[in-house]
């Protein structure tokens, strides 16, 4: 869906809210009632806000002993029937990867916020980065499906947090909310409203003896057993059959893993989201996320005022990447520019889809955001055919 058509455009009272605060507000609005986490800059404000907000709505906030346990607790809470989330930054996101893979494989809905800071390792805790783009897709071992959303403003962090819970519940999958420090700790005047109704999980119903926790048609999402409803369920990180118990039977593994790996692809229409600005006649198409997309938006205006035909394609759903939408947006562009705070992670995906010949990168890794003027200058040289 093109994000411009979103039904979330309601306009209530103006307030000053930071990105991480908006994430906490969105989580509560989406029905999240469990948070387990370990404080880490620049995501700690999410935990701080939820430590006050969750008890007020009869939810549970737990400051855990570490990042690994936080992810495990979130999985347990979700299996217990509660919408659950955690929040972290790069170093913590690395530590969560094993349990994240468990949630993907066992199909446990949950939301993980990763506020990107400079890396690798401890990196630059208070500076922005966009270098976890590939880790958010491929961070855990093995083949697995995952949804990653990339908001670019305070208001969008709120709406995308709600959407993250909706997608997690509907498709029984971890959803990662990925945004950079610059957006996380930015405070903006916004009109948030009450959000939208959040999708609820499909619970098992019907005859108890016939229930098999992972039985579903190819590409479909099986119903979960709500604890206490009396349905027999088994959950494991091992490859499992429809009954949830481990198996190495090749056909059974092929069938079940095959369903898991195609369940998002068969619902791409519902999952994909992006924004296109002035793409129709663009000679140069900019592709960017987060703070780099905000800078690109300004660069686009600067270029247009100089008579240059520049457009912007901004994925809101980063993974699965909105492939068809990008290819349509870039149909007439002679050049594609990817500004990002890393050495070329988003560019790699764009090159995969559009070919290397017309794609150029603009990368920054020094902890400073890319300024609109830098992007405008590069777009101008590309528009004039002097890359």
């Amino acid at each position, binding site marked *: 869906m093109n994000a411009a058509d979103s039904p979330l455009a309601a306009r209530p009272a103006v307030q*000053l809210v930071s990105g991480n605060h908006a994430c906490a507000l969105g989580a509560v609005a989406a029905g999240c009632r469990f948070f387990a986490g370990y404080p880490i800059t620049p995501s700690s404000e999410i935990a701080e806000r939820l430590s006050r907000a969750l008890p007020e709505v009869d939810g549970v906030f737990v400051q855990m002993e570490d990042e690994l346990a936080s992810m495990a607790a979130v999985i347990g809470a979700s299996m217990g029937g509660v919408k659950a989330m955690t929040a972290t930054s790069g170093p913590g996101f690395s530590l969560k990867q094993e349990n994240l893979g468990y949630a993907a494989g066992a199909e446990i809905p949950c939301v993980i916020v990763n506020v990107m800071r400079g890396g690798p390792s401890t990196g630059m805790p208070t500076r922005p980065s966009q270098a976890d783009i590939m880790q958010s897709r491929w961070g855990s071992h093995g083949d697995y499906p995952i949804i990653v959303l990339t908001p670019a403003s305070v208001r969008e962090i709120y709406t995308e947090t709600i959407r993250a819970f909706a997608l997690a519940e509907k498709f029984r999958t971890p959803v990662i909310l990925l945004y950079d420090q*610059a957006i996380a700790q*930015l*405070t*903006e*005047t916004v009109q948030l409203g009450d959000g939208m109704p959040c999708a609820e999980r499909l619970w098992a119903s019907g005859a108890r003896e016939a229930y098999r926790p992972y039985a579903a048609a190819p590409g479909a999402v099986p119903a979960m057993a709500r604890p206490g409803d009396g349905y027999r369920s088994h959950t494991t990180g091992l490859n499992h059959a429809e009954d949830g118990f481990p198996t190495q039977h090749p056909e059974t593994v092929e069938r079940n893993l095959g369903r898991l790996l195609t369940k998002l692809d068969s619902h791409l229409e519902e999952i994909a989201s992006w924004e296109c600005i002035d793409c129709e006649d663009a000679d140069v198409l900019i592709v960017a996320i987060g703070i780099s997309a905000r800078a690109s938006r300004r660069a686009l205006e600067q270029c247009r005022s100089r008579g240059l035909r520049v457009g912007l394609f901004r994925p809101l759903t980063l993974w699965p990447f909105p492939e068809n939408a990008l290819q349509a947006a870039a149909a007439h562009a002679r050049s594609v520019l990817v500004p990002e705070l890393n050495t070329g992670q988003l560019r790699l995906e764009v090159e995969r889809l559009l070919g290397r010949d017309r794609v150029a990168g603009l990368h920054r890794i020094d902890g400073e955001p890319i300024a609109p003027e830098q992007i405008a200058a590069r777009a101008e040289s590309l528009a004039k055919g002097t890359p």
Partner: protein
Amino acid sequence: MKPGDRIELRIAGTGGQGLILSGKMLAEALATLGRHIAQSQTYEPTSRGGFCNSDLVVSETEVDYPLATKLDCLVLLDRLAIKPSWALLKPGALVIHDTRLCPELPPHANIQAYALPLSRTAIDLGSERVANMVALGALVALARLCPRNTLEQAVRAETPKSFLEINLDALGAGFALGEQASTASAAALAR
């Protein structure tokens, strides 16, 4: 402000001076006037010390790029903050610098600089910790950003009870410094 106008402000110094808080108070005050605000900050991993700044982008319309690119106003509460901010100054920018902590500025062809005793005034009021409030008052008075009572309301809303009296005193003293400086420079221009 005219439609499409964009004003960029920075309050800069070192971590622990309350710069982010004063930026948030100013943001609250300007938001009540219907302005669109984006407030951002830079700080270092240390909880005290290191370069720290609070930036505001103020606009009549929704802010596209939310970070500062060309500063209209800069307040310097430590000499450490000069280097990361100097290249961002717009021609004709207003620069307020503290006489104790940032007494000297590098040469600049086109700025309006005011050396004001911000931290000295705070110390005389009883606590150097309120230098951020003195600075806020001086900035708003010199740059004529909003009515004084609008700012006072924002400061009241954001201040814990135990600090309210001294914060309002500091704000008032800052306003007085700003207005004196403004009058003095107008008089100098008239001569």
